[in-house]
């Protein structure tokens, strides 16, 4: 199955690449050139960063481990079958937080996969370092600046790529998409013009000229911004309400996923969408089945469930990947919350996902199994998951460019992409 999907981005060497090879350029160049020569690509990755470090142990509950219940007096999610507020069993050992019930059908349909005990090889418990590391894909290297998704764009260039090939729904470019390749950061995908009524075209022409020749960040960003207005303008006519049954929550995440779905359906060349959600830093009154974390998880699950219904058959080419910089302490702290920990759980949703399973080696929750005696240990390097998505979903085989210093072994892969 894997080899078959590898072909999603067909590796056909062009004359140009062969000619380049004869000048003695290395194999990586060949790989890039081959990827660049791909005639068409339609895979979409929707990356969702849960900023603040989601408590993976309450999101995907290890109800088969009694120590989970021992360590969390007030915030544990009750075992499946324990009545109201019980976790929703996935495989006899893990269970979904009950607030995520709307995602359960996706798991049952084999379109939702979980990777547990996933995280960074770097043990930093700093939100900002750990987020940077996860976004650069270079854990431990504070000097790394560009993001793994940008390096993907760079290593799999597309001649004539859409202005909206990579979009961050954010007022600032996330590290993951920062770098040499063009990417767009914007909080709305619906604005198509600016300036005073009646003189909008005039205003736009003037701005276009002022920024036309500046080869700096302001110039490049403004040119991209103006081009994107045109793309979103083309979508305007095709603005369709979400599909029947797709009820997005009226939240920032719900609105953003609705806009992303609209752009995917509009087929304007979107390949990477990057979204942020906040509030996961639950040091205080995290709650169990109900409460603060439950509210955030409900929003996430409801938005994703609506997104899946809205896209329907289009989900075949879409993969949603959730990530968070680290997990949280096994023990609840003195304030009914949890402090900064190590491993967490990540989710993949999509038609090409080998779902219905919880992946990863479970390290256990006994004191000697915990990292530094307190946190869920990392058994899956987030890079192996991201690399699998890169190669098998996005069809970019150039792992070495995207995750330098990381040896990706295709034979050892999780198999989370079908």
């Amino acid at each position, binding site marked *: 199955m894997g080899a078959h999907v590898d072909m999603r981005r067909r590796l056909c060497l062009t004359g140009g690449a062969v000619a380049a090879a004869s000048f003695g350029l290395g194999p990586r160049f060949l790989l890039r050139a081959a990827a660049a020569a791909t005639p068409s690509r339609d895979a979409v990755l929707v990356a969702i960063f849960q900023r603040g470090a989601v408590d993976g142990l309450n999101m995907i509950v290890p109800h088969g481990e009694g120590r989970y219940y021992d360590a969390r007096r007030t915030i544990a999610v009750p075992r499946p079958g324990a009545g109201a507020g019980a976790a929703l069993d996935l495989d006899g050992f893990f269970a979904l937080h009950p607030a995520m019930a709307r995602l359960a059908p996706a798991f049952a349909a084999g379109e939702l996969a979980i990777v547990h005990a996933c995280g960074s090889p770097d043990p*930093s418990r700093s939100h900002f370092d750990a987020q940077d590391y996860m976004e650069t894909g270079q854990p431990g290297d504070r000097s790394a600046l560009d993001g793994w998704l940008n390096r993907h764009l760079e290593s799999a260039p597309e001649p004539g790529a859409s202005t909206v090939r990579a979009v961050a729904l954010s007022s600032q470019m996330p590290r993951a998409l920062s770098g040499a390749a063009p990417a767009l950061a914007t909080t709305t995908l619906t604005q198509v013009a600016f300036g005073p009524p009646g003189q909008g075209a*005039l*205003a736009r022409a003037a701005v276009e000229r*002022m920024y036309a020749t500046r080869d700096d960040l*302001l110039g490049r*960003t403004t040119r991209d911004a103006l081009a994107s207005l045109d793309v979103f303008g083309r979508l305007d006519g095709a603005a369709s309400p979400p599909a029947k049954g797709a009820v997005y929550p009226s939240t920032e995440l719900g609105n953003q996923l609705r806009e992303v779905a609209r752009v995917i359906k509009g087929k304007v060349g979107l390949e990477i969408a990057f979204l942020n959600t906040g509030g996961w830093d639950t*040091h205080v009154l995290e709650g169990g089945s109900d409460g603060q974390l439950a509210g955030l998880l409900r929003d996430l699950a409801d938005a994703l469930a609506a997104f899946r219904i809205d896209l329907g058959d289009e989900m075949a080419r879409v993969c949603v990947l959730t990530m968070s910089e680290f997990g949280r302490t096994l023990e609840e*702290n003195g*304030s009914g919350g949890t402090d900064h920990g190590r491993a967490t759980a990540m989710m993949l949703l999509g038609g090409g996902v080998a779902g219905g399973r919880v992946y990863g080696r479970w390290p256990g929750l006994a004191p000697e199994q915990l990292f530094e005696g307190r946190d869920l240990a990392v058994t899956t390097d987030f890079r192996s998951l991201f690399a699998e998505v890169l190669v098998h979903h996005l069809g970019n085989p150039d792992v070495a460019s995207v995750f330098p210093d990381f040896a990706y072994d295709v034979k050892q892969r999780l198999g989370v992409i079908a």
Partner: protein
Amino acid sequence: MTVRRKLAWAALVAGLWLPVTGHAADAEEEARILHLAKRASFGATSDLVDEIRRVGRARWIAQQLAPSADPPLAARLARYPALDMDSAALLASYPQRPGEAAGDAIGRPGRILAEVSADVVTRAVHARAQIAEVMTDFWLNHFNVYAAEGPTRYSCVAYVRDAIRPHALGRFRDLLLATAESPAMLYYLDNYLSSSPSTRVRRKNKGLNENYARELLELHTLGVAGGYTQNDVVEVARVFTGWTITQQRSGRIEHVFVPRLHEPGVKTVLGHRVAQAGRDEGVEVLDMLARERATAELVARKLVSRFVADVPPASLVERAKGVFLATDGNIAWVVATILTADEFYAPEHRDTKVKSPLELLAGALRTARADVRLGFAAATLVGNLGQPILRAQPPIGWSETAAAVVSAGGMVTRFDAAYLVASGRIAGVRVDAARWTELAQSTSAVDALTQEILLSSASAATRTALEEARAAGARPALLAALVLSSPEFQQQ
């Protein structure tokens, strides 16, 4: 100020009396004045440039670092009644009624932060003490709190007014202590809940909460590479157990130290033994942190980055750090060092910093000689531009580098905002739009408008764009908006 410091000030000021001879020197001095006016304020205006030229750069900096009363500004700020209230008055005047939606209507809790935000914008536009405003903005970001939830909706007033503003140009140690004991920070970083695991107080949740301890070390003082360990984080958390706030139902939100919640015993922080001393342990640790070299390095680097360049010149960081250490964290002294440094005035750094949303909007309003009567809508616009005031969720606050400030959607919002300013369409703000008409009617309309707004000539591309827009019938307010939308105006 000690005699030694006074002498040092005099030497610093004397060093700035440059021998000015000939036109080249005049032109260079003019360029330096304009650069200082842009970087040490929320937007250069011709009035500000005249003022600096009149008193001289050195004396202007000295005056700014010891600001005097500003009655016209005080009159404007009187329109925000929450700003003078203590927590009891705020709780009584802006009560949270059960079942009532949040919001910033008059009398609702959300109104308080709206007034605080409006106050920030009003001051940025109208304050004579511009450096104090810039530094208040800097410290609010360094000691970030998210003020739109829970008791911070009330305590944000005291946070800005009593913790940050009085110390913005004072001693770093005082600022650090003021933030540590501020109800806003105690709530935002959860320390109010952190207690000794062995406390005999009956409460549902007891035990350490590491949140404040970690960010104190990582973000407020040493920096993430400042040499502390996870064990130091836990020890600092133990030190600050019992630093909490009064419950809202008591009718006040104030800092209190509750000895029963405090973890007894000796603590060890960064290898130093902290003897058991209740609340004083925390003060001792803050004193220690404020004097650490790593803290001086972090503060110096951030300040040089703010005033000089996204990639701060190492030589100036080193000097600013040295001044920080030598003066026991005298912030005014560090700022003076930066604003008088050769690196600060180096031509390669001029007009290279991309303005933050507040800098952009306040600068546009200052340029438009706006009269901010009520700053609510203007503050909302700062949020639309990407950095809502006192609403950064992550403790690290907003990043100030160009890469973080510039985005595609953000540029379009900037162009929209430029038109709202130039056409006087921001509620509560009056703009003299007739002036644009006047300038646009002169024979060299484009020159007149760019000189008025940019205080210098524009690039060829900008001039061409403006000439074409004028020829195509752009109205004066749109022409002014286009100058405010130009790449030149995005930078300082």
